[in-house]
C-alpha cells in the first residue's frame, strides 16, 4: 500500500483498503445498538423489575397467571396462522389468474397490488366499518331488501372481522413475490404439459406449484410475522373482546401505566415472532430452493 503511488494506481484498488472492512461496519451497527438493541435490552431488564422494587420473576408470574394474557396469546397465534393460510390460498389463486389466464387490464391489476402495499393497514378496517358495520353497505342492502330493522352482519367486532381485514391487507404481500416468480416461469413448460394431455388442475399442481414454493414460503413467512405483530387493524376494530399481544402491550403501557407488565408481554411477543420467523426461514429454505 505504501508503494502505491499515482504512477502505479492499479495496486491501490479496492483490494488493499486503508482500513479493514469491519471498521466501516462499526458506525451503522453502533447506531443500531443505540436506538434499537439497547432499548430492547432495557425492555427485557424492566420485565424483571416489578413496581415494588428489586429484581424478580414476579411480573412474569403475574402476567402468565392472568386470563387476559392467555386469551390474547391464543387469539394472536390462531389469527396469525389463519390469516397466513388465507393469504397464501387467496394470493396463489389471484396471482395464478393474473399470470396465466391474463385478461385485458391484468397489468393494471398488478400495478394496483403494488399501490395497495403502500397504504397503511388500518384503512382496511376503516373501510370494513362502512361495508359491514352496523349501518354499512351490506346491512343497508339487507334492510332495504327485506324491510327488517337490522341487518345480519355483525361480525366486525369479533375476531372474524380482524381475520377478514388481515387477509385483505396481507394477500398482496403474497401476490407480489408470486407474480415475480411466475414471470420467470417458462410458459413452454405449460404448453408442453398441456399438449401431453394434462388438464389445468394437474398443470397447476405438478408444474406451477413446485416453481411457486419458494415464493410462497418467503411471502408466507413475512405475512405470518406481520400478522403476529399487527396492531392498527385490531386497534381500529375497537372491539373489547379481541385482544392480541400488541394490543395488550399498548393497553398495559399507555392505558394502565403498568410498564413491567407491558415489558413482559413485549418479551413474549418478540420471542414468538422472532422464533416463528426464524423457524419458518429455516424450514422454507429446506423445502424451497
Amino acid at each position, binding site marked *: 500500500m505504501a508503494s502505491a503511488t499515482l504512477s502505479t494506481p492499479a495496486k491501490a484498488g479496492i483490494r488493499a483498503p486503508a482500513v479493514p472492512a469491519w471498521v466501516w461496519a462499526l458506525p451503522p451497527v453502533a447506531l443500531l445498538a443505540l436506538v434499537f438493541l*439497547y432499548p430492547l435490552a432495557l425492555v427485557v431488564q424492566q420485565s424483571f423489575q416489578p413496581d415494588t422494587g428489586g429484581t424478580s420473576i414476579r411480573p412474569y408470574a403475574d402476567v402468565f397467571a392472568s386470563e387476559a394474557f392467555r386469551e390474547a396469546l391464543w387469539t394472536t397465534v390462531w389469527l396469525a396462522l389463519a390469516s397466513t393460510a388465507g393469504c397464501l390460498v387467496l394470493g396463489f389463486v389471484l396471482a395464478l389468474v393474473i399470470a396465466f389466464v391474463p385478461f385485458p387490464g391484468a397489468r393494471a391489476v398488478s400495478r394496483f397490488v403494488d399501490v395497495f402495499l403502500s397504504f397503511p393497514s388500518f384503512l382496511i378496517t376503516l373501510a370494513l366499518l*362502512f361495508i359491514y358495520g352496523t349501518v354499512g353497505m351490506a346491512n343497508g342492502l339487507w334492510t332495504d331488501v327485506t324491510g327488517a330493522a337490522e341487518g345480519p352482519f355483525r361480525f366486525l367486532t369479533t375476531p372474524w372481522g380482524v381475520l377478514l381485514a388481515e387477509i385483505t391487507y396481507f394477500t*398482496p404481500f403474497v401476490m407480489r413475490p408470486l407474480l415475480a416468480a411466475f414471470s420467470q416461469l417458462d410458459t413452454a413448460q405449460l404448453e408442453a404439459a398441456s399438449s401431453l394431455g394434462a388438464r389445468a388442475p394437474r398443470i397447476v399442481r405438478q408444474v406451477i406449484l413446485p416453481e411457486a414454493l419458494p415464493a410462497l414460503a418467503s411471502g408466507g413467512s413475512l405475512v405470518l410475522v406481520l400478522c403476529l405483530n399487527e396492531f392498527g387493524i385490531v386497534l381500529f376494530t375497537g372491539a373489547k373482546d379481541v385482544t392480541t399481544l400488541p394490543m395488550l402491550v399498548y393497553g398495559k403501557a399507555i392505558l394502565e401505566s403498568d410498564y413491567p407488565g407491558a415489558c413482559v408481554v413485549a418479551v413474549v411477543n418478540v420471542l414468538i415472532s422472532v422464533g416463528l420467523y426464524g423457524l419458518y426461514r429455516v424450514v422454507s429454505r429446506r423445502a424451497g430452493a
Partner: protein
Amino acid sequence: MLVHSRKAKWAVWALFLLLFLPLFALPLLVVLGASFATNWSSVLPSGPTTANYEAATRGEALQALTTSLVTALTASLLALAAGTWAALAAAALKRRSRKVMDALFVLPVAVPSVVVGLAILVAFSQPPVLLNGTRWIVIIAHTVLVTAFAYQSVSAAITRLDPAYEQAAASLGAGPAQVLWRVKLPLLLPSLTAAAGLCFALSMGELSATMMLYPPDWTPLPVLIHASTDRGALFTGSAIAVVLMAATLLVLLAVSRIRTRASYR
C-alpha cells in the same frame, strides 16, 4: 395459456373479479365515497358534501399532515443513509459476519412495532438521553422501523451489481472513495430511490409505534385518523385518510420520476 376454452376462461375471470373487487377495490372506493358523504345507512352513502375535506385540510389536520410529511421525510432520509451505509459495509465483509449483519438489520421487521415503540419509550424516558415528549422520539422510532426495509432492498441491489464496473474503475486508478461515489452509488441510484419511496410510504402510515410515544404537539396523520374514528367522526376520518393516501401517492410518483430519469443515464 393455462385455460383454453373460451367458456372456462370467462368462468375464471368471473371468479377473479368476484374475489378481487369486493376484497381489494371496494375498501378503497368505500373510503373515498365516505369522505364525500355525511351519512351511510343504505347501500350507497348519502348527503354529498365537501365539508369533510374542509375539516381535513385545516387546523389540527393540516398540522398533522405537515407533521407526517416532516417525520416521513426525515426518517426515510436517515434510514436510507444508515441502511445504505450498513448494506455497503456488510457487502465488504466475510460471509459469516455478513450473515450477522443481515440478521441484526432485519430484526426490526420481526420485532413488533408496538414493542419497538415501547422500547424506545423506555430507553429515552430516562437519562442519559431524555427525548420523551419531543418530536425526535417519533422520528427515531420511524427511522428504526424503516431502516430494516432500506437495508434489505439496498443489499439486494448490491448483490445484483456487476462487479466488473468497480473493478474496471479501480484498475483505471480510481480510489475506493471514487469508486463508491462515481460508480457504485450511481448504479445503485434506482434501487436507492425505490427504497426511499418504500420507507416514506411505510413511515407515512406508521401507527403502532407512534401510538406508544407521540407527544401532544407532534401528532401524525394516522394518529389523528384514529382519534377521529374513535370519537365517531368516521366521515372526517375518511377524508383525512384520503389526504394521507393522496400525499403518499404523490410523493411516490415524484420519487418514481427520479428513478426513470436515473435509469436513462
